[in-house]
């Protein structure tokens, strides 16, 4: 196949057509390691439109970050291999784009924020340098203009005394401020899609709320699509439009946020929701999903969740459930989604 560069094929911003902004379609990612093939992502599909917030939920190791890294094109290949699937951005499959084309998309049109801002920022350069680099490299701006832009951005993400602090190094900031710097850097070029991979996990609770608020606000302002990867169901309810729940490298449920809170359609989503501590259940024992996440080197047959599933029937052990469409916006990868849905309504 002839490799194409991004400018040839990607329509300018806004030229959307019917396609959503970003579509992940049946994505597979494996890691070829000494111990064997780790199937980290086994058929993930989700989509994102402009101005929309998609929350991606799931236990540790379920493949949330690997999917995000595949979208960004920052997986180390090898050991990573993408044997199947498409990631379409404005209808163009990013996976078949040339490296040059991808570099133009990265940072410029799809940006990413990482969990631990301290290790994600380079310790030997000032924050101003790191933010203004976006303008210098992508826009050919001069050092001075770049720095001016950096100060503006730091103001925008509400870092106090931005002008004085622009020449400080990452280690001189608090955790929350560092994450703000990360955010400033990621939104520098007005990306159309922002992927935030557990942006608040490393922070304490009050700071978490502020960062989430900031992200939501920035998103509203610029109409970005936001993919929010998180463990924290509490956060999701307030900011997300829709949710994709992942288990063992697969999407088990896609749903608008209110629907899933009202009535989950997959036993795993139900387990996740039941394990949130709730005020009205005070004093009761917290629910926890029984069993352990599967070993990705040796996946269970049939539905990967069957060893832990209270709804299990015989065919769950042998048949891999497809994503059953429940409604136009909802789907569940459970053979017995009707029962689950009814059960959680009742």
């Amino acid at each position: 196949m002839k490799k194409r560069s991004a400018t040839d094929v990607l329509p300018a911003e806004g030229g959307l057509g019917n396609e959503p902004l970003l579509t992940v379609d049946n994505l597979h990612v494996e890691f070829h390691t000494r111990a064997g093939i780790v199937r980290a992502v086994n058929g993930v599909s989700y989509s994102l439109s402009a101005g929309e917030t998609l929350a991606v939920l799931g236990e540790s190791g379920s493949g949330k970050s690997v999917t995000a890294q595949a979208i960004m094109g920052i997986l180390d290949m090898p050991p990573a291999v993408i044997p199947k699937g498409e990631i379409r951005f404005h209808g163009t499959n990013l996976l078949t784009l040339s490296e040059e084309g991808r570099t133009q998309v990265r940072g410029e049109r799809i940006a990413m924020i990482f969990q631990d801002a301290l290790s994600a920022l380079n310790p030997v350069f000032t924050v101003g340098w790191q933010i203004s680099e976006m303008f210098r490299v992508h826009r050919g701006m001069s050092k001075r203009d770049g720095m001016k832009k950096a100060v503006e951005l730091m103001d925008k993400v509400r870092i106090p005394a931005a002008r004085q602090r622009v020449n400080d190094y990452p280690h001189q900031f608090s955790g929350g401020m560092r994450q703000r710097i990360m955010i400033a850097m990621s939104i520098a070029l007005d990306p159309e899609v922002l992927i935030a991979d557990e942006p608040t996990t490393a922070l304490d609770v009050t700071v978490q709320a502020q960062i989430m608020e900031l992200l939501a606000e920035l998103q509203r302002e610029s109409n970005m699509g936001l993919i929010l990867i998180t463990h924290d169901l509490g956060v999701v309810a307030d900011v997300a439009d829709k949710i994709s729940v992942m288990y063992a490298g697969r999407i088990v449920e896609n749903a608008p946020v209110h629907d899933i809170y009202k009535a989950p359609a997959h036993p795993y989503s139900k387990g996740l929701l039941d394990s949130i501590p709730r005020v009205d259940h005070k004093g009761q024992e917290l629910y926890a999903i029984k069993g352990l996440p599967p070993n990705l080197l040796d996946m269970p047959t049939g539905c990967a969740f069957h060893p832990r599933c209270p709804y299990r029937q015989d065919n769950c052990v042998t048949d891999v459930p497809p994503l059953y469409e429940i409604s136009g916006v909802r789907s569940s990868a459970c053979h017995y989604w009707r029962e689950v849905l009814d059960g959680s309504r009742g």
Partner: protein
Amino acid sequence: MGRYVIRRLLQAIPVLLGSTFLIFCTVYALPGDPVMILGGERRIDPVLAAQLREQYGLNDPLIVQYWNYISGVFVGDFGETFQGVQVADLFAGKFQVTIQLAVTALIIEALVGLGLGLYAALRRGRWQDHAVLALTLLLVSVPTLVSGFVLQLVLGVKLKTELGIDFFPISGTEAGWRSFLVPGFVLAGTSIAYLVRLTRTSLMETLRADYIRTAVAKGMPRSRVLGRHALRNSLIPLVTYLGADLGTLMGGAVITEAIFNLNGIGQQLFQSVARRENAVVVGVVTVLVLVYLLANLIVDLLYAVLDPRIRYE
């Protein structure tokens, strides 16, 4: 910063005293009487010997001898040899030769070591990487004596007789900086090997860091990710090694100087130990310790330049 430098220089004084005293004791403890060795085969008249011992203070207790010596050093007087030559004069030209040799070696080490190390890291796991690693094994396992004579023969002699290229002199320092290229490489051999491996590991380590992933995610081209984001971080541990190595190179120049007939401090040290010229031996060591301390200070200052998390006040 200025105060830090002054504090470090003050800290150097006890280190200097301690190390010179140790070497003083060692030389003192060597078997053989310097006055008798001075006479060589002939037996020296006992009266003259006693007079010489008195004159050079060899009858004083060790600590007094040491004090007499070291108090002179602090005002730049390194004493004189039994032949009446000022040690400081003896040093003058020779230290220059050794420093030239060591600095040439250090530059070669830095260029070759960093270059090959970075190259191997970027070609990790491929044949180029394996080839570089094999080369480092070769460098460590061939003794200076062998590599010195072989390179002298090949580059100093054969190149001229076979190909007519007269670039590397066989020995001596007449050809200026060119005289130091081959000996510099020979002297740096083992250090190059270690530096290659250290560089390779350091860059590979750095490339796994989260901030490298960030740089890629920012859409930075690969050359920039490597050259700006990774390089500086991976240089930090290497600078320490290079700085410490300057002292090692100067102290280890004895054999190389002998092979290439460079009239440096190594040669002098060798002769003076044989002749029990305590003043010279201790003098050489004192200066070497000074160089070592100075190199370390520079390394620490460079560290602060490379890594903003380190601040000295």
